[in-house]
């Protein structure tokens, strides 16, 4: 799966979990750019991402990403090659 495909799926997840349809993520998007992405909904997003990609993040990873690009790299590293 390439970065663009992951981004597309993340976009779906964000809109679904935050109950909206106007989120457009890119690699530089941060939590400050997205309405409703706070520390609480972050957990909901993390769990939804884990489910969609059938991966598990470590406790540390969950707090480590500075933007969507870093999240995508993290997901990519966990997916089977």
């Amino acid at each position, binding site marked *: 799966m390439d970065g663009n495909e992951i981004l597309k799926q993340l976009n779906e997840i964000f809109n679904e979990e935050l*109950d909206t349809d106007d989120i457009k993520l890119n690699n530089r998007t941060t939590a400050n750019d997205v309405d409703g992405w706070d520390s609480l909904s972050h*957990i*909901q997003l993390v*769990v939804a991402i884990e489910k969609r990609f059938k991966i598990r*993040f470590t*406790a540390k990873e*969950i707090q480590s990403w500075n933007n969507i690009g870093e999240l995508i790299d993290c997901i990519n590293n966990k997916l089977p090659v």
Partner: protein
Amino acid sequence: MQTFSQLKKNLKKNFSNHKKIKVALLGDTATQFLQQALRGTGFEQGVDLQIWEADFNQIERQIFDPSSELFEFNPEVIIIFHSAHKLLGSYNKLKPSAQSSLADTQLSLVNNIVTSINSQLKAKIIYYNYSEIDDSVFGNYGNKIESSFLFQLRKLNCELMGFATKQSNFFLCDLSSIQNQYGKSSLFQTSIYINTEMVLTIDILPVVAKKTIDIIAAMSGNFKKCLILDLDNTMWGGIIGDDGLENIQLGSLGIGKAFTEFQYWIKKLKNRGIILAVCSKNAESIAKEPFEKHPDMILRLEDIAVFIANWENKADNIRQIQNILNIGFDSMVFLDDNPFERNMVRENIPDIIVPELPEDPAEYLEFLYPLNLFETISFSNEDAERTKQYQVEIERSVLQKNFTNEDDFLQSLNMSSVVEPFNKFNTPRVAQLSQRSNQFNLRTVRYTETEIEDTIIDKNIISFTFTLSDKFGDNGMICVIILKKENDITLFIDTWFMSCRVLKRGMENFVLNIIAAYAAANRYTFLKGEYIASAKNEMVKNHYFHLGFQQSADYWVLNIDKYEQKKCFIQTKK
């Protein structure tokens, strides 16, 4: 079951037709998601939970400070979530010599919490028991070591049950059984715990919320009273009309075992007060044959309150059962192996619960257990007698058909009633009736046992309970009146509810004669009544009008000085 995301979407929906209930939520871990899941689940069950959530880890501060926000909020229900993880944290800090007292210490904390709440509020308390954590310090041997965490946690869960038997307003929500059902990895996710202090996973929240709301729904009178059963391939394997008595599958061999165990479960439900009815497409005599003659049948005809077997459609037959039992469709559960019949009943009777039974009868029980269909918040000896009472009621209605004159019929019943105030023997039943009565209930004020006990010592409250027996048997307590002194000349009828089993026997007249006589003997001039409409009490909308009360604004008033005894065929039994 809905996902947490779906429940969250419910929060934006319109709750205006839902019953408002003030709920306080206190936890020693982060409870924001639980709060959202509870409110979202409440939407599904018709309740608008107005939740006040304490700040993180404030249980004791809120409860032991009489001027706290909790007491100011004045909730009807208080949900307390002490987590197993925090319990383990406390245990870890104990000196080895003190470890054996963990359960006792925690139980005494719970006791103090309940006492403190009860001293200020009339709230009902829901307390989660502890999900199990085995720290494996002793391995299996921990079961033999009193100071092990596993030993203390299990002891605490057990003693909480003992504590709950003595506290009428304290209810346990069984988190431990949820973990037992779904597994620890479904309940707890370390990465979330580390980052947020939440001890429940997103996926288990809907389950925990549902189990909690089940209790709250039961508190507001919403619970199941009747189980309607199909027969062929539901109660036994095979088709009695085709296969015959010898060939249906029941007993200890093969798939017969599944049906026998299923019947044992249903029998236990019956013994705890669930009314059983049969609704089967069969000739009646053939359908009854296994109940009468099959050696492996667990259920017998005397277990079934209403037995309907014919070739009519099942929705009509269930309407007939409803008519005989006089309870709401929303308090009925229908079990049938046939998807066609299930859909037909669902479509025609939207309120009835029709579980989507698995195709394999061997799975019936494991499928039904976690649905938790039969939540209750009370249990009394009368529950065990309920089936008998409904059967007698049916005999009575058969007799009635032989009389053309209603007075002659009532006369022939030889009815008598024991009239008593509340006392320590009848308070559990009074409280239970107060929760169960929906239709014949003028104001639908629900009382707990504790509140009923409080009225006994209140000089401004006069209480009456009524039993009714007749030549067919004893119905037990079926009616309750609570009068409040409003002033020197007026008694207000705070509560009047009656079991629908005894409708049309002149019980209303008898009750009014009794309370009017009390009012007259104590020099009151007026009895004042009120009807408060609920979703279910349309039946008594004109109750006071029919009894001769005059309307006065929102109330109904009866002048005692002009009262004439109402005709009635019930004798007072001393």
